[in-house]
């Protein structure tokens, strides 16, 4: 309670005496400025992805010229080149793109939803849920292909549901409880994975280990098709949900006031994220750090704005570039892509942390 005697608060800025009409061009100009930057960044990112994709497909230890590549894709058989392009380079680049898009978009969505950069599907254990279910199916049940995808979906969805139930997030936004619940579940699932691997026979365990590191080696065209289909459907849906998620960002009460039911929006976003993460994980394994880093990198490029499409493309660039390095950085070895993203991701995260000036809210 402020108590005043005879103080007169006469020196405050003059308010509007009459309602001025306002300049309708003003909000348009401000919006145009932000939109210009978003447009530029997105164009640059897509160009960057295209460059990375072409390098991945055409260069490396076996160079394929553009005309040759075009002829191969349209059906001409070129000895040697055909096999390498169609069985290794192209599928890996495409799978990397799809997985990167899915993981990047998923991570950025969760981070926006929880208003916390820690809340990406890998930290929250959703990726781990998919992994554990997939490893169990691969090793114990001897399943493969679609069965692994279904198991990964079920595992991811189970963890997401458990997080919502256990953290009380279903009743309202509870980022911290969500993250802690997710960390606990992830730790538990890691033990499950270790146990499965220890009891499996050596050959199977090795196969599962490679997959668990996150690898694009040996992806099949059918898997790429499945992943591309899911990404093509789920990404636009996620972008549509994102426009309402932006209102949920203002707080649950305000979102209600603006006619947006926050729980419904969160549930939709969560469902789409689970589908995207699980699909990518089922095919390529849990590729480390992509979901975690794509959002913050996109935000940095956009000057602090959250953009799910931009984060998706950042994810695609990371995976394709990392896969190129994984394949050719050390001559004679073909590393899983997850090793590179893991190795490069951690220092990059630290750099992001150090070079980001804390916002007023964090500092407070």
């Amino acid at each position: 309670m402020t108590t005043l005697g005879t103080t007169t608060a006469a020196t405050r800025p003059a308010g509007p005496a009459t309602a001025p009409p306002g300049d309708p061009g003003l909000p348009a100009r401000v919006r145009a400025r932000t939109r210009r930057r978003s447009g530029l960044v997105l164009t640059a990112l897509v160009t960057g992805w295209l460059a990375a994709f072409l390098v991945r497909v055409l260069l490396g230890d076996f160079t394929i010229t553009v005309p040759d590549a075009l002829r191969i894709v349209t059906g001409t058989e070129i000895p040697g080149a055909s096999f390498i392009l169609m069985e290794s380079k192209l599928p890996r680049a495409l799978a990397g793109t799809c997985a990167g898009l899915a993981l990047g978009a998923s991570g950025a969505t969760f981070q926006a939803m929880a208003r916390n950069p820690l809340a990406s599907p890998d930290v929250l254990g959703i990726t781990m849920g998919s992994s554990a279910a997939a490893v169990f199916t691969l090793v114990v049940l001897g399943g493969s292909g679609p069965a692994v995808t279904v198991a990964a979906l079920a595992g991811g969805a189970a963890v997401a549901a458990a997080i919502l139930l256990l953290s009380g997030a279903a009743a309202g936004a509870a980022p911290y409880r969500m993250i802690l619940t997710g960390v606990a579940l992830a730790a538990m699932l890691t033990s499950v994975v270790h146990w499965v691997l220890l009891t499996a026979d050596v050959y199977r365990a090795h196969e599962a280990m490679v997959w668990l590191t996150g690898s694009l080696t040996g992806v099949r065209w059918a898997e790429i098709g499945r992943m591309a289909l899911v990404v093509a459907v789920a990404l636009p849906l996620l972008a549509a949900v994102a426009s309402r998620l932006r209102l949920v960002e203002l707080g649950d009460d305000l979102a209600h006031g603006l006619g947006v039911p926050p729980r419904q929006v969160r549930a939709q976003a969560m469902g789409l994220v689970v589908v995207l993460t699980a699909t990518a994980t089922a095919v390529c394994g849990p590729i480390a750090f992509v979901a975690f880093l794509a959002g913050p990198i996109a935000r940095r490029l956009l000057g602090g704005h959250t953009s799910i499409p931009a984060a998706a493309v950042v994810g695609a660039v990371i995976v394709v570039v990392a896969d190129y390095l994984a394949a050719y950085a050390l001559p004679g070895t073909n590393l899983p892509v997850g090793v590179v993203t893991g190795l490069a991701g951690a220092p990059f995260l630290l750099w992001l942390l150090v070079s980001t000036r804390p916002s007023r809210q964090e500092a407070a």
Partner: protein
Amino acid sequence: MTAVQTPSTRHAPPAVSGPAGGMGPDAGPAAPATGGTALVAQGVSLGYQGRPVVEGLDLAVPRGQVTAVVGPNGCGKSTVLRGLARLLRPTAGQVLLDGRDLHRMPTRQVAREVGLLPQSPVVPDGITVAELVSRGRHPHRGLLRQWTRDDDRVVAEALAVTGTEDLAGREVDQLSGGQRQRVWIAMVLAQRTGLLLLDEPTSFLDIAHQVEVLDLVRDLSTQQGTTVVMVLHDLAMAARYADHLVAVREGRIAAQGAPRAVVTAETVEQVFGVRCRVRWEEPDGDLTVVPVGRHRSTSARPGAAARPGAAATATTAGGAS
């Protein structure tokens, strides 16, 4: 002497609000007919997880006027507002918006007619003032209804009315508390509702910014004919700026009506549990509430020069709010 007194502002004590200034042709429900009630609560009970907080609330919000809900901490005044804003479903009774059951209306329709500013909205990182205010247009948009010049016009007006035009390109998290609160109000104004519900719009603001925000609220009422319901913890401020006061104590309405009728020594003691002297200054109708408490006035203590009747310099008085 410790005094709780309203600062003098350029506003006369609230009189009958003027006819609607009109915020433009598409004001729709925002152009109200003066008189009557905009929002009515009938026997409303509200609670959280089975724990009742408000019981048997009967409340009529006069159209085109400023209503302030006052009461001690934890009395349920914010809960009352949450009930009126449809954030809480009543366990009994109903809330009527222009005669329609608020809880049976489509969500989007409510958002077009009732604007809500909660106590602590979250500022997203990196958002500019113009973008934040633009989000207020959401209830008027649809899958097929894209952003139009009309939306721009409404946003520009909201910026102009709240005096935040100069801030349009600035980032919200770099503004001062008072500026930020005006921006939030601009966002709710862009929603173009005839009814605004504000939960503690002046909390965490210093006195100058409190006055700035409340002056704006009065402007909206007298110039645009907007109906405002706000929760305030400051009794003197509420009495100065509201046409209609609702005093809440332990989840029930202790008194409601014109400030002069509500703020009496008896009601203040009953509602806040503090004995006090209440004085309405003539001729401008400023209110002074002096909490009596257990101690004598510090200025009347031995050693201090007794200055009967002298207004105190700024001190903090607990209790009366």
